[in-house]
């Protein structure tokens, strides 16, 4: 399943790091962060609950960039 989220992140490199963190999160098949449009497209593993996974993604992203936000 694919979902697109609105995000907030201030620096381009942090956006790349967020993408990396999101990809590493369990239950995420693939993730793309678009810094300019402030969007994150996440492809979930079908056996996972997307809501739980995205919460985990946000938690991991907060570690690298405290200011970032994912709206879900």
């Amino acid at each position, binding site marked *: 399943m694919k979902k697109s989220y609105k995000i907030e992140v201030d620096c*381009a490199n942090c956006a790349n790091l967020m993408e990396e963190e999101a990809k590493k999160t369990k239950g995420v098949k693939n993730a793309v962060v678009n810094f*300019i*449009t402030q969007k994150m497209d996440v492809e979930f593993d079908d056996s996972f609950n997307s809501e739980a996974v995205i919460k985990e993604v946000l938690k991991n992203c907060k570690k690298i960039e405290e200011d970032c936000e994912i709206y879900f």
Partner: protein
Amino acid sequence: MNKKQKKILIRIIIASVLLIGLHFIMIKGAVRFFAYMIPYYIIGNDIIKKAINGLKNRKPFDESLLMAVATLGAVILAVYNEMHSIKGDYVEAVAVMLFYQIGEFFQNMAVNKSRKNIAELMNIRPDYANIEINGKIEKVDPNEIETGNIIIVNPGEKVPLDGVIIEGNSSVNTSALTGESIPRAVEVNDEIISGSINLNGLLKIKVTKKFGDSTVSKILELVENASSKKSKSEDFIAKFARVYTPIVVISAIILAVIPPIFRIIFLNLPALWSVWIYRALTFLVISCPCALVISIPLSFFAGIGGASRLGILIKGSNYLETLSKVKTIVFDKTGTLTKGIFEVNAIHHNKIDEEKLIEYAALAESASSHPIAVSLKKAYNKKIDLSRIKNIQEISGNGIIAQIDDLEIIAGNEKIMEKFNIESIKCHSIGTIIHIAINKNYMGHIVISDVIKPESEKAVESLKKLGIKNIVMLTGDLKNVAQNVAEKLKISKFYAQLLPDEKLKKVEEIISENNITAFAGDGINDAPVLSRADIGIAMGAMGSDSAIEAADVVLMDDNPLKISTAVKISKNCLNIVKQNICFALVVKFICLILGALGIANMWLAVFADVGVMIICILNAFRALFIKHIDK
């Protein structure tokens, strides 16, 4: 400016004022130290906070952490100097923090600006639709309109949804969609596309597509998602950024430790720890790969935005990148290089006025719905007066005999002329030839053929100029027709009489033999070929969903010059990307060397770092402004 930006701007101003003010106040010792720590705290508190966070999460290469270490290190060195009765430089630490924040602020503004710019360029999203409810016209959200509803579009308003005109006529401006500024006349039964602007007449439109499926929504979605499909350049930079920071940080540590030890052990000189630590801290200031990381996606974003303004939709940064490297381009002939509709192309050996000849031919063929008859009627372009026509006789497959104004008109091919013993003049042109005789006297012939688009020749020429030497044309038409078109357009390679599946095979063959191949078609029946090519270009796609779906580059109208414009945009954008990568890397590298040698101080380092970023961002903006290649 949003709240966040205003806040940081205020901090920048206060810190700058304090810093300048302190320069003129004579204070010494601890007072001086604390005085300078005020602007430092004002400008840097969030970075220090983030740095602590980075430490907690064990991210040693966190950007904020490195900035904090560099500036706090500079402060400690200044204090150390003070203790040895040398005047310490506190200004530097504050200034580095200040410039760093200015850089971030500028970057933030630039990105917001570009986002807004492109939204404005694509200012096609309608805010409302007028609908009649109980005799009253009300404005409603376009999302609420169902297919089959009747909407009203006043002059000056945007057409909110795709539909068919059921009442009224007007001219519409489709420039926001196609980049074409000449208004188009529309009348009842014409299809009309959302995003076009109604210029003068009131229109009633029966909606054929819901808002989410309408052209406007499709285009906006496409452009917005395009920059999420990342290019190889972006991947490269992301990977580079991951190794760049650690390498610089490790080099800084080596720089702080090795030279002093070397001096003590081998040269018997004083270690000069503070000098080398200072140089190492300078390294940390340059350790952020920001200029690179921001400017590359921004360039692609601007390139895609600039293209969409011209009616060229590029579905991803990756496609923009591939397009710039295309070496071979394959055209489907009909509908791409030629109009795909039959038109009167020439009139030869006429003994009466050309117009008169067309008039007789059109009248004779008036009862027929054959494409040839349609094109004759179109060329005549007047209302056909049926009372003038009597006794129409069709000689199947050969032509027509009719009585018009008491004249006997015979119109048809050579065979019908032979049949009536009329000597006809053979034609050397390619196409369908209609010979005309009046009262069994030969009056000349009309050539009807698929017409080459007026822009095609220039399109092929400019593609060659842009470095695409290998241009191939495919067609299902006969060989002599294909050859004629190819010669006129100066296309050296063509393959004729191909069935649709053979076209796909041919394209696959060409792809396997050549490097990067683009295929341009009109999107009708060629979806498999479009998706098979490295770059599929569909033209005249306004309203055709399957073409938009299958292609990588979508041209909103059917002007082949847009293909060369698209290539030009892609090359220009990739040039900017390369410039930015090279410029940023070279400046950073020079700064690192100068820093290591002690020539560059922290001031220069932060100036260079922020300066490079600003220049790269401004350069990226250039990708937005590219002009269309004209006839």
